């Protein structure tokens, strides 16, 4: 049983590699546009570094958080985002639209589980800029030691899992609400915005919100917590949170897919 699971996991990894290769080939057909999008996102993220630099020049400490802490927050969040949607580009904005337009059906003709396969179908060029930024900032600016570096790499993957899971959750809204792309984009953008500010700004009531409806807590707070404390317990909590978000997304997706397959998706507004 375990051998079979291991084999299919390896098979899926090989599928990921094939999709990565074909996605990058497709992007590099227009390398000028690709590189400029990567660079632009890098600069976009850099603008926020400038902001925090200016801020911390004037106000050195923010409730126990220093510039390095905020940089770590940004680094792990952008790195996770970049890994998530560099590999699984369909998990971001395309998800809700594809469901609404019936694009999932093409994917259902293949001998693969729909969700993990569909996610691989495209890459988001600017995500590579985010990934590069995250790693450059962390290793260039925060300058970690070996343990911190290892922790960072692991956490960037954890954050990537959260992003994919949350992307699936918000995108699956289309199963229930028709073309929900603007709503799901909004939900995601707001959550990501919250995730890029130090959690010490928010008090108890808001924090509850940030671990439920607006899962910024799982996106960045738990990961950064384990990065600051370097504690394995915190890391495990962050991993559990990531798995929880992913599970929520997967459940929402498959319930929605069941509805779609029974043909109860069709609804019209008049």
């Amino acid at each position, binding site marked *: 049983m375990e051998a079979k699971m291991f084999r299919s996991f390896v098979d899926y990894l090989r599928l990921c590699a094939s999709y990565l290769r074909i996605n990058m080939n497709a992007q590099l057909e*227009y390398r*000028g*546009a690709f590189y*400029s*999008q990567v*660079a*632009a*996102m890098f*600069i*976009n993220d850099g*603008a926020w570094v*400038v*902001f925090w630099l*200016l*801020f911390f*020049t*004037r*106000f050195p*400490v*923010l*409730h126990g958080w220093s510039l390095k802490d905020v940089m770590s927050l940004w680094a792990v969040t952008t790195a996770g985002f970049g890994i998530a949607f560099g590999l699984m580009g369909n998990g971001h904005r395309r998800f809700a639209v594809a469901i609404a337009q019936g694009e999932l059906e093409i994917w259902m003709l293949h001998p693969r589980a729909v969700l993990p396969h569909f996610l691989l179908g495209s890459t988001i060029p600017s995500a590579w800029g985010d990934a590069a930024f995250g790693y450059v900032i962390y290793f260039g600016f925060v300058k970690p030691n070996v343990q911190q570096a290892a922790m960072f790499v692991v956490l960037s993957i954890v954050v990537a899992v959260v992003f994919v899971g949350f992307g699936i959750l918000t995108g699956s809204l289309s199963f229930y609400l028709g073309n929900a792309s*603007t709503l799901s*984009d*909004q939900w995601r*953008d*707001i959550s990501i*915005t*919250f995730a890029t*500010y130090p959690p*010490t*700004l*928010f008090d108890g009531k808001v924090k509850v919100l940030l671990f439920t409806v607006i899962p910024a807590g799982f996106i960045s707070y738990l990961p950064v917590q384990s990065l600051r404390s370097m504690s394995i317990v915190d890391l495990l909590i962050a991993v559990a949170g990531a798995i929880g978000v992913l599970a929520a997304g997967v459940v929402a997706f498959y319930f929605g897919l069941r509805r779609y397959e029974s043909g109860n998706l069709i609804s019209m507004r008049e």
Partner: protein
Amino acid sequence: MTITKSASRYLWISYTAARSNLAYSSEVIYRCSFLAVILFIFLRLWKVVYAASGSDRVGGMTLPQMVWYLVVTEAIYLSAPRVASEVDEDVRTGRLAVHLIRPLSYAGGHLSRAMGDRVVRFAINLTVGSMLALALVGPIPITASGLVMFLVTLPAAFLLDFLGMFLIGLCAFWLESTSGLALIYTRTVMMFGGMFLPLAIYPALLQPVLKALPFASMLSAPGVMFVNPSLLLLKESILIQGAAVAVFMLMVGVVQFVAMQRLFSNGG
């Protein structure tokens, strides 16, 4: 075409653009929810800063003034129309070639549409932002003359931003994609225009440089004028805005000229 005829034609373009903006309610809700989130987060940020600083003024402003400043700069920033991508598309589809014969009317058409878009969006953003600010920090003292001075800084601010975006769109003649450049531009405006942090907070060495750059005239000048109006500041702003507009218009003229040459030599 006589002046009045072309003026009324441009006004009609603005009006149509303005009206179409009111139709897209989901976009409005999106922008307003974003505005609410930013104000909420920054209020908490400033609360912490003010508490730690021990005084009730930071960078010359009280906490409520800081929040209202952010409302104004955000309202301006989020009201920007998509001029760069429209011009980019015109260049790539060849529509521009037709219009470049009468360059003034091409820019003029875009300007009227952009202003129509912008004024409506800005009004909505400002209204919603004001309601949020009132709920969060209450009102700040505003005089009628202060309000007038604030309004005086707006046209040039909008015009400057338009010219900047127009220039970026024209770069489509030479670049495979201008979306990256457009993003850099908006971020530069954000950071050097003092959207989140008033320029007074920036390091003292940078302040004169930043004030002279056109970006400050787009965001910081109207923002400060709303919160802390003063005649001296107004005179300064008008001078700088005027100079910036002149420089930008010159740049646009040059770039359009070069683009035209390239068009005629390459045959479109």
